[in-house]
């Protein structure tokens, strides 16, 4: 396959091809940086973005390591779909919910760092020792790989050797979908509001008419721009309560009123 051939080159003396080595030394730091950035960045959206970088790099690795199917799935499904799901939820529950600097659990960071370093050393050491001298095989030439047709080979394996597990994953996915619906579903407490009850509620509220729209002024027409009342003062009802600040104030007079808002 061309994608595999692009990265691999020829195996020489038990070493991966030079092109692969070059790609590793470029992509490896990127993926590490992305991972570290995810842990360190305060803003959750930034975290998600740096994780995307890591996942992209991993997808590249899969491509290089003669797994084009997995590599593309990683990029399209994982990075493309799942990470977008993450971002959706992030937006839904408030992107500004960034972590505070102060650690509330005493010693948690120190212990986490210590354990992390210890674990990394342990695993890296043991993996290095266990796989010392292991040589990469060329999956394109092995018999198990059906002549290098990666997608075909994986499909053959999935629908023969791993058929049962594959069926189980389909059940798992359906259950997950149903479970998500159950978890996200909200029961209505009272009866469904009718047109009549909504109208009655509105009259009773003391404001039957809709809220005033934002100001459309010569200086700006953003939704952050408050409308002006006939006396020139600012209508607080015309901007959303959650609007961080009045970015664009009308350049008009009434600076006293504007100061009030600020």
């Amino acid at each position: 396959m061309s994608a595999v051939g692009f990265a691999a080159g020829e195996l020489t003396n038990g070493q991966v091809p030079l092109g692969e080595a070059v790609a590793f030394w470029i992509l490896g730091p990127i993926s590490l940086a992305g991972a570290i950035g995810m842990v360190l960045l305060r803003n959750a959206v930034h975290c998600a973005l740096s994780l995307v970088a890591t996942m992209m790099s991993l997808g590249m690795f899969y491509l290089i390591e003669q797994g084009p199917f997995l590599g593309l799935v990683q990029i399209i499904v994982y990075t493309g779909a799942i990470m977008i799901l993450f971002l959706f939820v992030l937006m839904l529950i408030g992107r500004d919910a960034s972590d505070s600097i102060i650690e509330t659990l005493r010693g948690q960071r120190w212990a986490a760092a210590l354990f992390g370093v210890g674990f990394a050393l342990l695993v890296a050491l043991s993996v290095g020792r266990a796989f010392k001298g292991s040589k990469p095989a060329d999956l394109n030439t092995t018999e198990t790989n059906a002549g290098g047709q990666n997608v075909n080979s994986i499909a053959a394996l999935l629908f023969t050797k791993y058929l049962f597990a594959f069926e189980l994953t389909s059940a798992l996915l359906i259950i997950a979908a149903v479970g998500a619906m159950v978890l996200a579903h909200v029961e209505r407490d009272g009866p469904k509001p009718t047109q009549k009850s909504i109208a009655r509620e509105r009259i009773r509220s003391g404001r039957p008419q809709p809220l005033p729209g934002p100001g459309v002024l010569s200086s700006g027409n953003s939704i952050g721009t408050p409308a002006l009342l006939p006396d020139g003062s600012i209508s607080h009802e015309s901007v959303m309560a959650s609007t961080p600040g009045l970015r664009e104030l009308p350049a008009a007079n009434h600076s006293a009123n504007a100061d009030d808002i600020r």
Partner: protein
Amino acid sequence: MTPTYYLVLSAALFTIGAVGVLVRRNAIVVFMCVELMLNAVNLSLVTFARVNGSLDGQIMAFFVMVVAAAEVVIGLAIIMSIFRTRRSASVDDANLLKY
């Protein structure tokens, strides 16, 4: 360079993910760290396939991805419902189940 490098990188990524789980408080970030750990394992599996000259490792990685997808769906739904009731996505705020 040998495939072992991939494994070492995988160990490093896994550890970073684990530390992230331990130190971050935003539930979604914690969840992303878990995803990172799964991805690190996937990298190992793919590398094992490479070393062994068989596609079984890739199949494993494939299944891990499927399970991860299901897990993400459920996990995000849980985070959503917690947030809906508690107006908070911090894992430290959900600490009622204690002594």
